[in-house]
Structure formats: structure tokens, C-alpha cells
């Protein structure tokens, strides 16, 4: 499957990366108006921005193209592709000078914060603003304090997953003859709404309002985030009686019959809490995790990024591969550990960063069957790089 990616944000970039890691031939077109002129929301000179680029800009070839000067080249590339993905915002493609009928032969997947149409289609947005208007922001954080953003470009990347899925659906529909879509418009706000739908639906059915949790547990329930001997542990034992949980943790003797009363638990919690925390610090987080699993409870280690990369389950599943990207490399082998796709089932390569070698000629030769002379002319004119 051939894909043209026109991305200025993490949404289109993640969609392109996912399709590339699935083995498809993705050409990322860059140039004025397409994320290469300071117009990318992924710009920035801090180390996290560099890591964002290192993760997202892998696995596909890039073609520099001055669309304003040679719009027909973009149209030709699109026509040679099976699908086009863009995230240039409401009307962004039209501003590049591409006529509305130009891409009709090729399905177009459009990713944007709010969609191509509608009263807020033109609103300016960042990931925080989309998380806010998609609602998931409101659920995270502590009661009485500002809601907390999910990290990085979460909203854009969720939209990227939708974009990759829509691209595959569009191509399959055409190739299988089941249905053909010209344009699929995916909105980040609408995508985010799915990710806290339980709260939205519970309000619709039961009028249940949502408050963020209190910062300090009071003994009615146990704290769910605690320190084990070697790191953080998440305690989730839905439907498990508190006295059973207390016995499991080795503090069952502190839970007599009176503690079944929530008011009494709240009253005694200041005395019980030190014992609770001490009991948890007696074992490592993986030890607790395995012991809880044996009785059917869903504890979990709360891992940081390093621990995710090197944890026993990641190693056993081969979740992490090595990416080579020259000067930024850290490992002894000249690469850095990078997560693979989160599902197995086919080849699971970790795509390298885009090579610096010139690829424009190869793309134009393979996709458009241009001659070497024609390619040389375009390069000499600065239309492609």
C-alpha cells in the first residue's frame, strides 16, 4: 500500500509511522506549508521535542517539495498513492493550491483538532485545548485543583491511530469493492470523547456527576498508589472486601468487625495507615503483583519509562528493538531502545530514522516513473529536494 503523508503535527506523523511499521510504503512530503517551515507544532529545541521527533519521524522516506511552485507533482504523487493522509487543519490542503477535485481518485484522510466543518472547525488548538474540549482532561487530577493534562501530544496521537485505521479501511473498501470513501474527516475532539465515554454515558443514564478523586485517601477505600520495597505499586482489587485485602497485606488483625463501618474506618485510619504503608514496603512491587494475581486481584507495578523498556514482560515479548540514528545514539551498539508496535502477528521491525541519503530521485522514479533527466531538472529547479 502506498501512502502520501502531509503532516505538520503529531497526528499525521503518528498515522504515518504506524502505517510504515505495518510495512506500507509511506512517503512523507515536506515543504513550505507542510510542517517544514516552522509551521509544525512539533517544533522546539528542548530534549523532549528531539525525542518526539526521534520516535515519530521513523520508517518512511521524505520528499521535499515546493507545492506552491509545482502543485502538479503533489497531485501526481497522490494519484500514484492508495491513500493520502493530511493534518494541515481545516482548509489547509486547499491553501496549498490543490483543487478540491484533484484527489478524488485517491481516498483522503483528514486529521484536525475539531474537524473540517462546524462552528469550531477554525479554532486554534494545542493538545491541551483538545484534551479540554474532548473532556478527558476533566477526569484527571485531584478534586479542587486544576484538571491535569495527559502527557505530550496524547490527543494528536490518538487521532493518528484513528487516521491510520481510517486509511486502511478506505483502501480495503476500494480494493475489496465493498465501499469507497473519498474523504474521511477525523476530529481529535471527537476521538478524545471516546476515551472517557463511561463518565459521559453514566451521566446520560443515571445523572451521575464526576468529581476528580481526593488527594488524600481517608480509609473508606485504601490508597491505590503506594510505595513497595522497590518502587510504586498500584492496588486495584475491584469488589474485593477491604478486610480480605487487609489480611492479604498482613494487617488483618487491625480490621475487626467494627471496621466494616465506613465511619469507623475513617476514624481509625490515621492509626491504621502507617501499618498499611509499612506492610506494603515489606515486598517488592513485582512480588506483590504476582501474589495478587494468584488470588485474582489486579495489582500492577507503576513503571517509569526506563522500567517499561527493560521490564520482564517487555523483554519476554520482544517489545523493544534498537533504532540507529547516528549522533543521538546512546547504546553501546550505536542505537537506542525503541518500542515496537503493541501487537504481534507479523514482522515487527523497528523502523530506523529517516536516512539523510537523497531519496527524492528514488521516489519519483518508483512512484511516477519519471526519467533521470526529468528528475534532474526538478532538482535543479529546487522544486524537489
Amino acid at each position, binding site marked *: 500500500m502506498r501512502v502520501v503523508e502531509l503532516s505538520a503535527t503529531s497526528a499525521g506523523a503518528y498515522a504515518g509511522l504506524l502505517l510504515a511499521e505495518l510495512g506500507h510504503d509511506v512517503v512523507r512530503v515536506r515543504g513550505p506549508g507542510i510542517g517544514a517551515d*516552522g509551521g509544525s507544532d512539533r517544533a522546539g529545541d528542548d530534549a523532549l521535542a528531539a525525542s518526539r521527533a526521534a520516535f515519530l519521524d521513523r520508517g518512511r522516506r521524505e520528499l521535499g517539495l515546493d507545492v506552491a511552485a509545482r502543485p502538479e507533482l503533489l497531485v501526481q504523487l497522490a494519484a500514484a498513492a492508495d491513500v493520502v493522509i493530511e493534518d494541515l487543519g481545516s482548509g489547509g490542503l486547499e491553501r496549498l493550491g490543490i483543487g478540491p477535485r484533484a484527489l478524488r481518485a485517491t481516498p483522503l484522510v483528514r486529521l484536525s483538532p475539531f474537524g473540517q466543518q462546524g462552528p*469550531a472547525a477554525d479554532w486554534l488548538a494545542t493538545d491541551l485545548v483538545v484534551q479540554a474540549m474532548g473532556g478527558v482532561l476533566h477526569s484527571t487530577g485531584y478534586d479542587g485543583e486544576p484538571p491535569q493534562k495527559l502527557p505530550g501530544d496524547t490527543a494528536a496521537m490518538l487521532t493518528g491511530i484513528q487516521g491510520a485505521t481510517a486509511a486502511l479501511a478506505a483502501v480495503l473498501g476500494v480494493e475489496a469493492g465493498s465501499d469507497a470513501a473519498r474523504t474521511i474527516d477525523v476530529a481529535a475532539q471527537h476521538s478524545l*470523547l471516546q476515551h472517557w465515554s463511561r463518565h459521559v454515558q453514566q451521566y446520560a443514564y443515571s*445523572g451521575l456527576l464526576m468529581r476528580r478523586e481526593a488527594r488524600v485517601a481517608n480509609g473508606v477505600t485504601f490508597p491505590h498508589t503506594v510505595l513497595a520495597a522497590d518502587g510504586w505499586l498500584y492496588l486495584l482489587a475491584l469488589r474485593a472486601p477491604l478486610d480480605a485485602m487487609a489480611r492479604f497485606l498482613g494487617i488483618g488483625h487491625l480490621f475487626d468487625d467494627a471496621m466494616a463501618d465506613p465511619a469507623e474506618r475513617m476514624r481509625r485510619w490515621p492509626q491504621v495507615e502507617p501499618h498499611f504503608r509499612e506492610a506494603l514496603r515489606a515486598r517488592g512491587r513485582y512480588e506483590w503483583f504476582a501474589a495478587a494475581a494468584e488470588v485474582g486481584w489486579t495489582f500492577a507495578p507503576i513503571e517509569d519509562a526506563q522500567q517499561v523498556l527493560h521490564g520482564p514482560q517487555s523483554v519476554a*515479548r520482544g517489545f523493544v528493538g534498537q533504532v540507529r540514528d547516528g549522533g543521538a545514539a546512546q547504546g553501546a551498539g550505536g542505537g537506542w531502545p525503541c518500542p515496537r508496535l503493541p501487537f504481534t502477528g*507479523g514482522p515487527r521491525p523497528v523502523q530506523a530514522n529517516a536516512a539523510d541519503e537523497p531519496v527524492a530521485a528514488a521516489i519519483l522514479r518508483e512512484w511516477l516513473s519519471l526519467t533521470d533527466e526529468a528528475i534532474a531538472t526538478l532538482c535543479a529547479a529546487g522544486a524537489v529536494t
Partner: protein
Amino acid sequence: MAARHSRTAAVAATAIADRRGRGRQPIAPAAPVAFAAHETRRRATRGAQPRQTRHRAATRAGMPRYIPATGKEASQMAGRAYRPLAGVRVLSFEIAFALPAGTRTLAELGADVVRVAPPARAVGNYIGVVDGVFQRKPCVSIDLQQEQGRALALDLALAADVVCDNFRASVLPKFGLDAATLRARKPGLIVLKLSGYGSPGPWSDFPAFGPSTEAAGGMNRTIAGEEATPLRVGSGVFSDQLAGRFAALSLLAALHQRHTTGQGATIDLSMTECIAHLIGPHLAYAARHGRPAPAHGNRDRRYVPQGVYRCRGDDQWIAVSVQDDAAWARLVDLVGEPGLRDPALATAAGRWDTHDRLDALLDAWTRGFDKDALAARLQAARIAAGPVRDVRDMHDDAQLRARRAFSLVRHQPPVLGQRAHPHVNNPWVVAGRERLALTDYRWNGRDNARVLKSWLNLGDDAIRALAASGALRSAGRLVVDEPPVPRALHDPEHARRLQLP
């Protein structure tokens, strides 16, 4: 390649003619690009105004609140629905949320998805009905403990294009329904297993809920940073929905591959790895720098200041991102606070160093405003801002209404006293097409006969015999027991507010 090239050339010619020829006007520079900072700058220098008035008008205009479930409009819509997966059969042994969310997406794209449920006399499933992830799926109920039941499940699996499950790793192999067995019988079959931690590995058979996989996948530490107590996502279904998104993606990829090569696939999906991949940039930072990335909370070095500030009302907030220095200058003019006119704040670097003070000043300014009115005012000044939606005003959002983001799902019989409820639908708008209507939760065994006739060509006698043997069951009714809702968290006006029928 020749065919590709000729199609390319023809379309290119059309496009250029479209753009330049036949006396057409050049395409007008249209709307500003959200997400892209360069557009903020461009619009600001042109002095263009956003379509704030249109936003308000749409709110007033009585735009249909929900996609209808029945009636003339619904039937017209069904005829124009987008169905790229028409003809694809999916058999799903599914519970809880994650896999059902993924297979519902396939159903919304036209696939024939059948849910297999365990035998039960009556089904009490408030959260299953409310979550909506079982919609558009007929349900059969099979007793896998019985030999006839296992044979029936195997027949259904071999009649499917896709078989998936989200039980623990050890469950389906006990019934001879594991991927190896199924694909030995039908190599073109696509089999997906979704679980908390994936297989193989030491945690493969550990039970998991979505929030525990968020913890194990690195999300909680990444939100809070190394120094703070980890913070969990408050949604409750964030990881479940994410895994559902990746399940749909992996199955679409496998279906496309099968169409191209004829080969099936065996997919093993880990919810924890879905979370880890989503925070891939943070994992890349850790890998490249040998330590986790610093956490900035609501702040972002690209947009300074950026934060969530209090507005008028209980737990009401606005999100504001200043995308560049020009936007900052406009914000300073709007706020009118002399302390913000300090030349040291003219650059993002200067503002980053005093972020705490800026947050305090902005919070003092925003708290007197209604969040929607203030967001519209800031957007009018070309400053990225948006109201923090909560469960009450989500359905009122004019943009979501314009996209018809909620479909009305009819109940028969009524559920919790209402004949229908709105549900979030697939976030794609396909040009010229409608979304398939969402149909209600089907309880265990409700569609036994219909599915067995359609998929296996079984006659009434055979179906009756299976039912008599106990291999095929049917729950008599659906019981939706509402859990107690604390008075302090209950809005008794919700049905009126949402205009439920």
C-alpha cells in the same frame, strides 16, 4: 506501473485545470489552521476574525442533538451508510470494555460482528448497557463446558473471517478454540487475542483492568514525573478504549493483508504495550538520555504560558495555550494587568522562568468569566483556548453537535425509565455518507436462532435440539440494576437537560 502513471497524469491534469483554468477564482485563503502555530501568526498579522458568531448561531439554531435511531431519517441514513467492512464476519468472545470497543468499531464500519456470551438465566449488566461497547452486535450464548457447545463454537469460528477474545490466555485453549487449532483448520482465518500484558511472558495470565495497564505501561509516572506521586488517568476506560483502537487497527491491517496475499494472521495485543507506544516519545527520551523525561504538568515549552485556569462556577475551567509571542501580546492587551507588560515576558524563555507568577495572574483574571464566553473571546483574539468540558456540557458542545457525535440508541423495553439514550459514535465523518445507526445491547442468547441460520444454515429443528441439549442457552431477560448514586453526585435534571425521549 504504467497504469498507475496514466491515472496519475490524468488526475494531475484535472487538478491543475481545476485550480487554474476555466475562469475559476483561486481558492480563497480560508480558515486558519488549528494545531499549527504558523497559522496563528499569519492570521494575527492579517487581523482576520474567527467565526465566533457562527459558533453561537449553531448553538441557538436547534441543530438536531442526536443521530436518530428510528424513523424516516434513520432509514434514509442507513441507505447511505459507509460500509467498507461489508461481508466481513467477526466472532468475538468478549467481556468488559477493551475488545468490545474495538469490535464495535468494526461493526460501525459494516462488519457482521457476533458476540459469544456464556450461559446465564438473566443478565444484569448496568455497565455493559451504559458503556455501549456491545452495540450493533447480535449475541449468541453457548455453553463451552458441553461437547456440543464446543463443536458449535468451532463451527461458528470456522465460518468467520476474524475470531477474537479477551479472556485470560489459558481460557480458550481449554475448549479447543486457540489460534493454532483454528488456523490449522482454516489458515486464512485472522485470530486476535487481547489481554492486559500480552503473551508470551511472565505476566501473560495475570488479570488486568484498564487502569492497571496504564500504571504498568508508564502513563501514571509520565503524567506526574519522577519526583511526584504517580497520577492515574481519571477516565477509568482510557486504556480500554486505546486497546480497542489498536485492536481495530491491527484487524484492519490483517484484513488488508489477507485481501492482498490470502494469508491469515495470529495477533496478540497487549494493553500495556498500547499505553507504552502512545507515550513513545517519552520512552525515546528515556532511552536516549538514560533517565525519564521531566514532567511539566499542564505546561509545555512550545506554548508559554499554558495552563488550566479556574472560571465562574463549581469546578469550571478553561485551557489556554499561548502559541507565540504575538499571541502573548494580544493576551496581555485583553487581560490589562500591568504586571504582564514586563519586557522580560516578551519571549517564551522569559515567560517560562516566571510561569508560576503568570499562572497566578491568569487564574485571578479568568475566574470571573464563564468558560464558554471567555474561550470564544480568546479565540476571537487568535489565542488558543477552550472550555474544559464536563459530563454535563459535553452534549451541548456546538462542534460535537455539528459532527453528530452522539447517536440515539432506542431501548426495548425502556432502560432506567427512558426509551432511548445518546451514545458516543465513531469519530469519522465520511463525505457524503452517514454513520450506521447504533442498535441496543443484545443480551445473552438473544440472537441464537438468527445467527445460526445466517452463519451455519441451521434449520429450526437443529437449533431446537441444541437448545434442548443445553449447548445453546438464552437468558430470559435483561436486568439493568442501577448502582446507588450518591446524592452529592446526582443531577436529577439530567434527563431533561439531555432531552431524553
